[in-house]
């Protein structure tokens, strides 16, 4: 036993152990330092990523140094790792694609945690942007996981990026209505609704002479956080104002015009 304690092998084990312990400590310190720097200068996702990369990089270096102290040939290990990497690469193509897509998402920043986005027919609040996926919470409280690869390929609509938003109310009025009076009534509704921004000014856009009505679009702006309240209150107030002014929102209808036959008596109307 005493002879063993003086052998080179034993000293190697001790040196490897010290190297590993120092490496782990250094990894922790570096992770903490990187975190403090990135927390104030970058987004949450970048900070998390930076901490992880720093930690595992230093840990890997410490591990490799410890193996070298033990006398192991790293070349053999690296060769085996290379073969393993190729095999895993084929198996993990999707994960790698998601990982790389995640990096692109973080650098491009089309959305951040807390914003509301619409992607592929799903609308929800962004809960997290992880390495492989983005998680959303829908408004009916469902948890949705969207792979980063899908996010990069799809069209993403960020509903809360800008501080104000426009609500477009499409409506139709009867052909017998005076359009000028309709405009006045709509503008008065917008003026009396405190959530409707005075500027940008509300707009009334002519859409079409449709089958049963004259179609208009009434566009009103609101602060982002008031969008839903405005949407609900405006429709109600427009309906009430139209009722007061006897402006009809018509049901679809058809007018039947009887025509006389080429011969014989005219049909009764």
């Amino acid at each position: 036993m005493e002879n063993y304690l003086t052998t080179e092998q034993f000293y190697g084990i001790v040196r490897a152990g010290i190297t590993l312990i120092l490496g782990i400590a250094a990894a922790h310190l570096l992770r903490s330092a990187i975190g403090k720097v990135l927390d104030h200068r970058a987004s949450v996702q970048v900070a998390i990523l930076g901490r992880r990369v720093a930690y595992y990089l230093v840990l890997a270096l410490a591990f490799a140094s410890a193996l070298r102290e033990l006398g192991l040939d790293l070349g053999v290990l690296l060769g085996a790792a290379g073969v393993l990497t190729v095999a895993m690469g084929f198996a993990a193509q999707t994960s790698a694609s998601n990982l790389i897509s995640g990096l692109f998402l973080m650098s491009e920043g089309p959305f951040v945690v807390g914003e509301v986005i619409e992607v592929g027919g799903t609308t929800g609040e962004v809960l997290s942007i992880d390495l492989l996926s983005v998680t959303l919470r829908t408004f009916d409280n469902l948890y949705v996981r969207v792979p980063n690869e899908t996010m990069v390929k799809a069209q993403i609509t960020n509903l809360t990026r800008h501080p104000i938003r426009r609500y477009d109310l499409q409506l139709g009025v009867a052909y017998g209505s005076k359009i000028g009076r309709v405009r006045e009534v709509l503008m008065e509704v917008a003026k009396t609704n405190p959530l409707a921004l005075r500027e940008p000014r509300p707009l009334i856009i002519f859409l079409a002479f449709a089958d049963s009505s004259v179609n208009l679009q009434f566009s009103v702006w609101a602060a982002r956080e008031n969008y839903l309240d405005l949407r609900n209150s405006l429709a109600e107030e427009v309906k009430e104002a139209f009722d007061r002014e006897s402006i009809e929102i018509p049901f679809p209808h058809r007018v039947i015009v009887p025509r006389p036959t080429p011969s014989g008596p005219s049909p009764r109307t």
Partner: protein
Amino acid sequence: MDDGEQKPALPWWGRFELGVGERGLWHVGPMRLSLTRQRQEISVGYLQNADPRDARFFECPTTAMLEGSGVVRNRYAFAETPELVWVRPALADRAVVVYPEDPFHVTAGESITLFCSTPLWIRVEVGASRLALMESAIERPPDTWIGPSTREGELCYATQTAARLERASVPRHPHRALTELRIRNAASDTLRLERVNLAVPYLSVYAARDGGLWTESVVLERTSSATIGRLQIGHPPMPSEAERITPARLTSDPGGILVRAFSALFD
């Protein structure tokens, strides 16, 4: 609620004492405010969009009740409720964009002084330490946006003004504060004044001897064709007669602050 006779036009703000079981009632413009003190709770009720007539009336204590649909009630619990109640006006919690009824034109090198009013908030505080209980707009003004685009700018309140040029012709309302606004156009082109951003969070509320509510005077200087102006807080109104009753929400630099004073969209 019994409106009764027209009450004397006393200031509706100030310090009041409410005994246990007593109630105070205020009519300020279109707002009705009720404060009821019990031993361990104070109940605050308010109604907006009421009839603005018979305004600037208060009765403390009173037996009248605040009733009707639309009354918002909140109850505040205490181990022992304080006797002192403070009711005072405050300016808006955001900048207010003032829209003259008819646009003004201020030619290059000229300056004008006009008087405009902005809506007030009502603030209720209790106790010697003046613990804030509630604050609400007396009449909720509409929102508006001021900025070069819909992506960049500031959310403000909007109010319309007759923009009178003479102090004597300015109507007084108990729920609005008056500001003497001096606009200097030091740029080389004419300023078409369709809107002015009055950064009211930087202003204080003063009570004049005649019961009117004022802010400090404001000087807005436009030095270039840009829509940004430098706002400087001027002197309090009638310094020998006005008492400051509510300080500003924000503090400005002595050199003034840059505001999007005149900006329109897509300039």
